[in-house]
């Protein structure tokens, strides 16, 4: 499944809704659905706030690479400036959370809510891969 949204915070709920609809069909436990909603929210919020200079002018791709009863893998692709969220120092984050830069807290949540996360820069695009295992 492949979705394209504009870089606008109001678009985030569209992706969450698509994911929720699929989740209901697969009868995924609601706690996993809510965790993935947070992951989607945090990743897209970061892209929308920091990857581009102007709102509503650019596209963000979200691909649900696979999604079954045991796991889901999503890919977030944007054409914004280079940004590897994994460069944030997560080990330090929890010790200094009160002074964490905006966006850092969101990434920290994502890294800790998913089972696998990977970043690549290809063809001038940021690619963020996240996998959640429902166990």
């Amino acid at each position, binding site marked *: 499944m492949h979705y394209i949204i504009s870089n606008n915070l109001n678009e985030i*709920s569209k992706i969450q809704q698509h994911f929720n609809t699929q989740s209901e069909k697969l009868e995924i436990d609601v*706690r996993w659905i*809510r*965790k993935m909603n*947070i992951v989607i929210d*945090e990743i897209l*919020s970061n892209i929308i706030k920091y990857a581009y200079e102007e709102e509503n002018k650019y596209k963000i791709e979200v691909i649900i690479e696979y999604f079954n009863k045991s796991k889901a893998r999503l890919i977030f692709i944007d054409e914004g400036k280079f940004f590897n969220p994994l460069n944030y120092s997560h080990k330090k984050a929890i010790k200094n959370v*009160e002074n964490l830069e*905006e966006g850092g807290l*969101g990434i920290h949540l994502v890294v800790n809510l998913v089972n696998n996360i990977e970043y690549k820069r290809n063809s001038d695009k940021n690619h963020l891969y996240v996998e959640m295992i429902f166990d």
Partner: protein
Amino acid sequence: MNVELNTYSNNTIKILAISGEMNANTSSEVDNRLTNLIMGGNKKLIVNLAGLNYISSAGLRVFLSANKLIKKQNGELRISNLNDLVKEVFEISGFTMIFSIYSDEKDALKDF
């Protein structure tokens, strides 16, 4: 995705019950309410999250900001009734080390 706020009192203690979702769109409403309560002179504030079923980092920041503000007023903020997901988010983010968290409102009211 909405948020609902309900404010009530127990003697000198103000309680804010938050229901629904705290995300980038809804958190500003909670922020405004908390700021108004604190700047209105309420030094003992409990936030009851029994009805909160979703929180993102935007929501966490609101609590962080409120905590800093109430401390400047020599007050205290307590948080109660976290469900499993919200509690997990608080634990991941280290917020359980920053905030006074109680299992329910009754516990939060004790010795306040």
